[in-house]
Each structure stands twice: as structure tokens, then as C-alpha cells.
């Protein structure tokens, strides 16, 4: 697995920071929004592509491309796929993203508007397609297997993991890097802000708290996360270290207005994931919620989880890592998956940072307020877009060695 995030550039450091309840300190500096505080949103302060990508020209890559190429490098190293192996065995890449780089698209367009179309940058044009980062990463790392880009809003990363898992299950793909990315940029941030979706400036909490009473919205961050998914027997045959198993996934859409549709859709995504995995709610040891501080969406998800677990035995602990990592859009599902793998390995579930007063309108769930031990070996991840897509994915720890 490989990750570039505000809380660390390794799965272990990310998980450790989450367990310690550390909030992201994104950097917000947008000259066009002088005076606006951005409340929790921003870009990763310390990310320097050169740290990870030495010795080659970085000009062809935009920030989104840099994030993915760097995360891919870390994932390939972590999963022991050196260049020699990639030359012999084509590995694929499936990347989830909500925007590609809307900043690159906009900058390309604005330069043409301001200076004339003859001044447009050909290299920037190559990065205006939403599948650009996936293409750049394939070039950089010689990934010649399937190369696909999935856009399902903020559920893109989890949708990509489901898509890639099915490619391995049902077709001839044996190794696919899968995950997601979205960079922080003015254009998308401003869009969310104009839609009134962001964490307000005039409330006590500096960073949004999912499920909290009085929550007002989310904070936009950025990240890239990739997991190397392999067909089990070929992974074993090459002596790979197996960190977890993708057991099943489900994806639904909510076509109607109103909370009832949304709750039903999320509950169905979870049920479909369990059915796909041939598992029942009782087999789930923890839930990594998609909740990010949004007024409606957090509520929809809580109601859906309640309906799924209702009468299903001891309440399953629920966490929401966006309480610390913020809303990383296309990367979010991948980050949740990486953290869940670490959670299942070391038995500690991160808590929901800052959750002191659960919204009374929400059902009683076992909200995990601080890091807690978990028992059992399977977790469920939800990733829900702002506009109707609900994805769920089940991951199990690998069977213990005899």
C-alpha cells in the first residue's frame, strides 16, 4: 500500500496518527479568497514531489499527477514490485478521482482566454483529461496492464477498489494497483464553498466532527492512496506478503430526492457488499464511515447503519477518519481501506476525533470516540458521494498462519 496524506506517507504512520487523534493541519493560501479562513481545508504542507520522485523531469506532471506517481512508487515498493518484475508482468492501475485536476483544466482554459489560444500549453492540455494522472503514473512506473479511471464523486476511490477487485475475480488480471486521488485546489474548494457545504467559520470546533450535534459541513483536504491488489494464488506463488483480503463490495445510486431514498440506498450498498462477500452483519468487526461533518449525509449514513445492524447482536464500533483527515474526495475510500487494513492487523480502531456530543437526532450507534481495541477480523467501509452514489467494501485480515 502507498499513501500520501497530511497525516503521513506510510500506512503505519497514517494509522498511528489517526489512533492518536491527530487532526490534519492543511495549509490554506488562496489569494483570491483573502480574508476567508477555509476552516480546516487546504493542501498538504510538506508534500514535495522531488522527495519521492528523484532524477526525472517533473514538468509534465501536475499536482494530481505528482500525488499519484509518488503514492504509486510507495505502493510498488511496499508490495515488492520492483521495475524488473513490472517489465516481465504487466500490472494494471485503476484510479478513482472526483475531478482529475480541475485546476489544470481551468488554468489551461484561463491562459487561453487571457493570452489567446496560441499561448495554450500543450503539456497542460495533456493533463486536462480526467484520466491524465492514471496515464502519467503508468508511464512513470511502466504499468502496462489495464489502465482505468473511475469517477463516482467522493466515492471514487472505493468504487475503484471494487472495480479492480472484480477485474481480478472475473477476468485475467492478476495484479492491479487501485485507489484514488484528488488534489486540493481553488476551483473545487470554491465550488463547495459556494454551495454552502463546508465547515463554518463561526463554530467552536476548528475541524469538522462527523455525527456531532451542530455540525455544519466538511473540510476539503487532499491525498492519494493506492493498494496493490493481486489474485491470491499468484500472490502466494511469488511469496508476497498478504496484508488483507477484499471480500466483497456493493454500489448503489439514490435517484430520488429525500432522506428515505438516500438511507435505503446506503443500506442497500452495505447489504450488497455483505452478499457479495457471503457474509452477514454479525461478521463485521468495525465500520469505517464516510461521515465527514455534512449535516444531511452523516445523518443518512447513521440511519442506514442502524437499519443494517438492527437486532444484529452487539453494536459494531463505528469510526469516521474524516474527523482527522478531512474530506479527501477521490482518495477518501482508499485512505479508509489502507487504515482498515492496518486496523485489522494491529487490532486498534481509531476514534472519531472531537465527538463529544452526538447529534440527538441520530440513532444510537456504537460511535468509537477514542482509539479502541477491536475483535474479529473483518471491517466494512462506506464511501458516499454528495449526490447519490453509495459504495461499500468489506476487507478481512488474512487468515492467521498455521
Amino acid at each position, binding site marked *: 500500500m502507498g499513501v500520501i496524506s497530511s497525516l503521513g506517507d506510510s500506512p503505519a504512520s497514517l494509522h498511528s496518527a489517526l489512533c492518536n487523534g491527530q487532526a490534519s493541519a492543511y495549509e490554506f493560501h488562496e489569494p483570491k479568497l483573502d480574508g476567508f479562513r477555509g476552516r480546516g481545508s487546504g493542501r498538504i504542507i510538506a508534500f514535495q514531489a522531488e522527495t519521492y520522485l528523484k532524477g526525472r523531469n517533473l514538468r509534465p506532471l501536475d499536482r494530481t499527477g505528482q500525488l499519484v506517481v509518488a503514492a504509486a512508487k510507495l505502493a510498488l515498493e511496499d508490495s515488492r514490485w520492483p521495475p524488473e518484475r513490472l517489465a516481465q508482468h504487466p500490472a494494471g492501475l485503476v484510479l478513482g478521482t472526483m475531478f482529475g485536476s480541475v485546476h489544470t483544466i481551468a488554468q489551461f482554459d484561463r491562459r487561453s482566454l487571457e493570452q489567446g489560444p496560441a499561448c495554450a500549453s500543450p503539456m497542460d492540455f495533456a493533463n486536462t*483529461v480526467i484520466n*491524465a494522472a492514471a496515464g502519467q503514473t503508468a508511464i512513470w512506473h511502466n504499468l502496462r496492464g489495464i489502465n482505468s479511471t473511475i469517477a463516482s464523486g467522493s466515492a471514487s476511490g472505493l468504487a475503484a477498489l471494487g472495480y479492480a477487485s472484480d477485474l481480478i475475480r472475473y477476468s485475467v488480471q492478476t495484479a492491479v494497483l487501485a485507489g484514488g486521488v484528488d488534489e486540493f485546489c481553488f476551483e473545487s474548494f470554491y465550488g463547495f464553498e459556494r454551495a454552502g457545504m463546508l465547515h463554518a467559520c463561526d463554530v467552536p470546533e476548528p475541524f469538522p466532527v462527523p455525527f456531532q450535534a451542530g455540525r455544519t459541513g466538511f473540510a476539503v483536504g487532499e491525498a492519494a492512496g493506492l493498494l496493490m491488489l493481486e489474485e491470491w494464488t499468484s500472490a502466494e506463488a511469488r511469496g508476497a506478503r498478504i496484508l488483507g483480503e477484499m471480500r466483497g463490495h456493493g454500489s448503489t445510486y439514490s435517484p430520488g430526492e429525500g432522506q428515505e431514498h438516500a438511507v435505503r440506498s446506503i443500506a442497500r450498498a452495505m447489504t450488497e457488499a455483505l452478499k457479495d462477500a457471503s457474509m452477514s452483519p454479525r461478521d463485521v468487526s468495525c465500520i469505517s464511515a464516510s461521515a465527514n461533518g455534512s449535516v444531511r449525509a452523516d445523518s443518512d449514513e447513521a440511519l442506514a447503519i442502524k437499519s443494517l445492524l438492527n437486532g444484529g447482536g452487539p453494536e459494531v464500533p463505528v469510526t469516521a477518519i474524516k474527523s482527522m483527515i478531512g474530506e479527501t474526495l477521490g482518495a477518501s475510500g482508499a485512505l479508509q481501506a489502507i487504515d482498515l487494513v492496518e486496523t485489522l492487523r494491529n487490532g486498534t480502531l481509531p476514534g472519531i476525533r472531537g465527538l463529544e456530543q452526538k447529534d440527538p437526532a441520530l440513532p444510537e450507534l456504537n460511535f468509537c470516540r477514542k482509539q479502541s481495541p477491536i475483535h474479529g477480523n473483518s471491517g466494512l467501509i462506506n464511501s458516499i458521494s454528495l449526490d447519490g452514489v453509495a459504495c461499500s467494501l468489506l476487507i478481512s485480515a488474512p487468515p492467521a498462519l498455521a
Partner: protein
Amino acid sequence: MSIRPGVVVTGIGMVTSIGAGRREFWNALMAGTCGFGPVQSFDTSQFGVHLGAEIHGFKPEEYVQKLDPHSIGRSSQLAIAAARLALTDGSLDLAEIDPDRAGVCAGTTSGEPHYIERFDDRYVLDELKMVGREFITRYPCHVVPGHTAMELGLSGETMMIPTACAAGNYAIAHASDLLRAGKADIMLAGGADSFSRITYTGFARLGAIAPEVCQPFDRNRKGMVPGEGAAMLLLELKEHAVARGARIYCEVAGYGLSCDAHHMTAAHPQGEGAARAIRMALEQSGFAPEDVDYISAHGTGTSTNDRLETIAVKKTFGQHAYKVPISSIKSMLGHTMGAASAIEAAVCALTITEGRIPPTANWKDQDPECDLDYVPNVARKHNVRIAMNNAYAFGGNNSSVIFAECAA
């Protein structure tokens, strides 16, 4: 090879610069009608080229009935129109299906570009306060299948695969996998793109736009012509189609997807990735190159693509490359971006049922490096049992989808 459940095409719908709906479109295609003209949707006076393949006279309110057509972008409108046409063509009454097991999988290059273009217009005029809520709810590209699902009341998996100019093939491939895995009963799969200033600027900057005409594979070809459009295929498992008495066009026999990992905007010089995608598609569908009766080419009309695509076909088909006709409908529709391979897939289905193949229009002089049978200028009667649809995209994304006559 294990027996896989058959996935069939039972309805097709498209909106293009030469016609909307199966009949009108196919007749125009067979007549070699071209949809080119001077660009009207924005000012091209500062460009060195002015040719486009825009759709004129499209009335979204004819197709968008549940949603307010003005509350969604043009790509969504086109996608919905194509979807409704496909459902009617496939005689599928949505009231008779389980909406939880029906989804939409679409491809695109730009999504809804007009919203970011308007954002940028405001940015340069220092009027950003005019940007409203609609930017974030109508711009991100996944709204195209989302709006389609919303319009039709579908609640199964809805996904956007924005793999640019190969996207339609990717969408059809994924939808067929979902059906085979038993995760849906019906899927609408295809692609949509609307005419974009950004796309036009980029291709003009690369010197890739033809000044007067699109003439794929011709010795004097000067480039592609950006266009717009949408197509949707109604896909279902064969047993489902048979059970409801649906008319079956053909089977989605298999697909191949690969990546050049070579260059962002130019294909691999030996057509390596494209050849791998072709081979993978043949292997997955259990056919040999000699079985293929027709190839729908990517055939953009640029010097490089047409030459490298020819190399890839020769590499995989050997001597049979000279026997199988291969034509490019981009010679008539221009390059409809994310819709292209979806429209071309629909054409493949029609070649099988109609027994005719479309021409490569505007072909005059043979290029010695492009010496295959490109069906120059005139549509022809041809018995097609197996058709291959090839599409290639920025980022080195290669795709091939094979359609086969449905065995009884």
C-alpha cells in the same frame, strides 16, 4: 475456457451531428453524410482552424422529462436522450424492471465542460461571486450517468469511466462484467461529450485539427475534427432478453484493455499496447483474427493515429488484415470524444443485423503506409458475424470490444 453467461445488446440510441435515433443515424451514415461545419458555439477567430462537428437543433426537453432540462449540463442531456432512445429501441418498459438491478455506466472525456468554462469566464472578469451552487452539483463528470439514472429512476450501480476517447468501450466492458457477475439485470452503457472550447483549444494547439475535412487513412489527411454526441447501449444477460422476448442485436463477446505506458498524447510507435488489447479481446471472446468480419477503427484522421493503428492491425491480423474491411465513422461524425467508441459500438451492432458496413468518407489518395481496405467513400453490403471496435485515448489507454452475432 469456461462458459460465461452471454451478454447481449437489445437496444441502441444515439444523438449525433448527422442524426438522432437508430434509423435516422444509420441512414445518414450509409449515405456518407458528414456533420462538419464552422464552429458556432464559441468564437474561433483567434484560432487557425474553425471546423467542428456540432449537433444543431438538439431539443433537450424532448427527452428530459422528469428533471428540468435546464438544471443539467449538455452532456447529461445528450446522455439522457441516448438512453431514452435505447430503451424505446429495446422495447423496455422501466415499470417492469427492478430499478435496484438497473444501472448506468458512461464514459466521457470532458464531462460537463461548459460549467468550468463559465467558471473561468467569471474568473478572468473578476466576477467569481456569480458562481453559484450549480457549479459543484452540475460539473463533476460523474453527474452524467447520475443524471441519467435520476431521470430514469434507476438505483443500481452508476459509474463514470472518464478514459477519454476510449471511454465508451470501457463503459461497455464494465457493464458487461457487472451483468455476468449477476449484479444487475439491465445496464445502460455508453458515453457522452459536449462540444468544448477547452478540448478544441488543446487539439488546435497540438496542430491536430483538420482545416477542411476529416479524411482518415488518406495520404493527405490533416487531422481530426472535434465533435460532440452520445450513445447508449441497452445490455442484459441473454437469458433475460430471451425471457422478455427482446430483439437481440448481438452479443458482447469480449474485450481487451491495455496501457502503452509510453506517452500521454501519442500512441506507442510499434502499436504495442493496441495490439495487446486486440489480442486480449480475441482471446476473451474465443475468436481468431480470421473470424473478424469488420473493424470499426479509431481512425481520427491524424497522421500518427491512422498510421500506428494500421501497424497494430497488421501486427495482430497478419495477412488477414488485408481481407477484413476497416472503416472510420469519424470521417463523418468527427471525433465525439468520450461518445465515440459508444457510437462506434452501436454501429458494430448494426453492421451485424443490417449486413452493411459504413464507409470511410472523404478518402481520395492512398497512403502507402495505410494500405488496408478502409471501405472508401461508399457503404457496402457485407455479411458481418463478428465486429471489432477499437478505441485509443490520451494516457495510452487502449481498448477493443468484440461484438458477435448471437447464436440462436
